[in-house]
């Protein structure tokens, strides 16, 4: 199977269970949004996939090959992480050269071209770069590597709006030119909602939802109107949250939409991905609850 398969992964830190028997797959050829609140377990799982820490239980398979302590998977996966794992005294151009020696699939020429696009001075040392440019440097390395699986952990941290747009468009270009799996872990949900095809939502160490963005948006909606009428409508439905404003009540609902009767004064509107995310992780409800 061409995928990153995550099988029954559990990770505990003292009395905290960071990941609780997590199983799912990132399939080849899709752009994923890997979403979750702070402390939900995103980075822990990414670090396990990237072989930086080890799980207490379970295993990761990359294209069917066990990832744990296996140098072979380095040609398959790259993880751009939020933490800075680079030598701070080395110049950007030297980082590129070393990366080129470590990875057979690094495109050195592309790295310099992208640096020009982002106006990154490759003669600067890593420590002399601003927060935003440190992110850009890491992004350029990730974008220049021709591996089938690339994970971006908070890729746009500290980037200004222009650079974020540039990054997203380069990412899509990469994806078009060279089919692969791109996994984006981010808190800026609305920015990526049109870019990602599928969402994996993790909450309190468990996978809450794995679904295409389209299906998810289809499913979540809000109903607003007079409190009593809203309550009547919501009876028996999967309500994930309420907002109230005087006599006006807004209910956030998951499930099939039904056509309102002609005389109804209720209003049904769509929810965007961010709103859905906030409501789902506030209460921590799964779709079958």
């Amino acid at each position, binding site marked *: 199977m061409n995928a990153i398969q995550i099988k029954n992964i559990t990770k505990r830190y003292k009395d905290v269970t960071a990941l609780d028997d997590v199983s799912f797959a990132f399939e080849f050829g899709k752009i994923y949004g890997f979403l979750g609140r702070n402390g939900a377990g995103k980075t822990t799982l990414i670090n396990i996939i990237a072989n930086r820490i080890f799980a207490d239980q379970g295993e990761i398979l990359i294209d069917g090959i066990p990832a744990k302590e296996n140098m072979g998977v380095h040609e398959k996966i790259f993880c751009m992480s939020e933490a800075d794992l680079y030598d701070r005294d080395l110049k950007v151009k030297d980082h590129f050269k070393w990366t080129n020696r470590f990875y057979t699939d690094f495109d050195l020429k592309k790295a310099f071209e992208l640096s020009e696009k982002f106006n990154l001075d490759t003669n600067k040392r890593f420590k002399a770069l601003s927060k935003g440019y440190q992110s850009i440097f890491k992004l350029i390395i990730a974008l220049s590597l021709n591996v089938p699986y690339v994970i971006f952990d908070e890729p746009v941290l500290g980037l200004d709006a222009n650079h974020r747009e540039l990054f997203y468009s380069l990412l*899509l270009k990469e994806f078009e030119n060279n089919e692969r799996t791109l996994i984006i872990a981010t808190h800026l949900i609305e920015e990526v909602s049109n870019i990602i095809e599928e969402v994996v939502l993790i909450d309190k160490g468990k996978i809450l939802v794995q679904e295409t963005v389209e299906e998810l948006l289809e499913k979540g909606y809000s109903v607003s109107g007079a409190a009593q009428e809203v309550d009547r409508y919501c009876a028996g439905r999967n309500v994930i949250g309420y907002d109230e404003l005087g006599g006006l009540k807004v209910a956030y609902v998951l499930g099939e939409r039904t056509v309102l009767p002609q005389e109804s004064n209720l209003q049904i509107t769509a929810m965007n991905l961010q709103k859905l995310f906030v409501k789902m992780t506030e209460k921590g409800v799964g779709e079958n609850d």
Partner: protein
Amino acid sequence: MNVNPNIDKPIFIQIAEQLEDSIFTGVFPEETQIPSTNEISALLSINPHTVLKGMNVLVDEEIIYKKRGLGMFVKEGAVEKIRQKRQSQFYEQYVLALISEAMKLQMSKEDIISLIERGYNNERHSN
């Protein structure tokens, strides 16, 4: 072109509608090429699979077609096809919505008809 993630309509449908509108208004004339999935995807920052899904709606409706190795082209007769489709949707999309709102406002059928006539008169004067 522009998509709005906040309205209650899937992005691929929005893309199909906007391409259709551009074809209808002559931005992309018949038998000419429309932008590629790649270009639209990069321009609007939208997943290329979503863009492709939107294009396939128009392929299914025989408004555009794929020229092997070249890209998507507007089909001959596409404009007329779109016109017919929209005319047949006119009743459901506009007339029914108009009546429903009019009833909420307790306006009579005669009120509506006179408003329509007023609209046509204004249109004539402004032209």
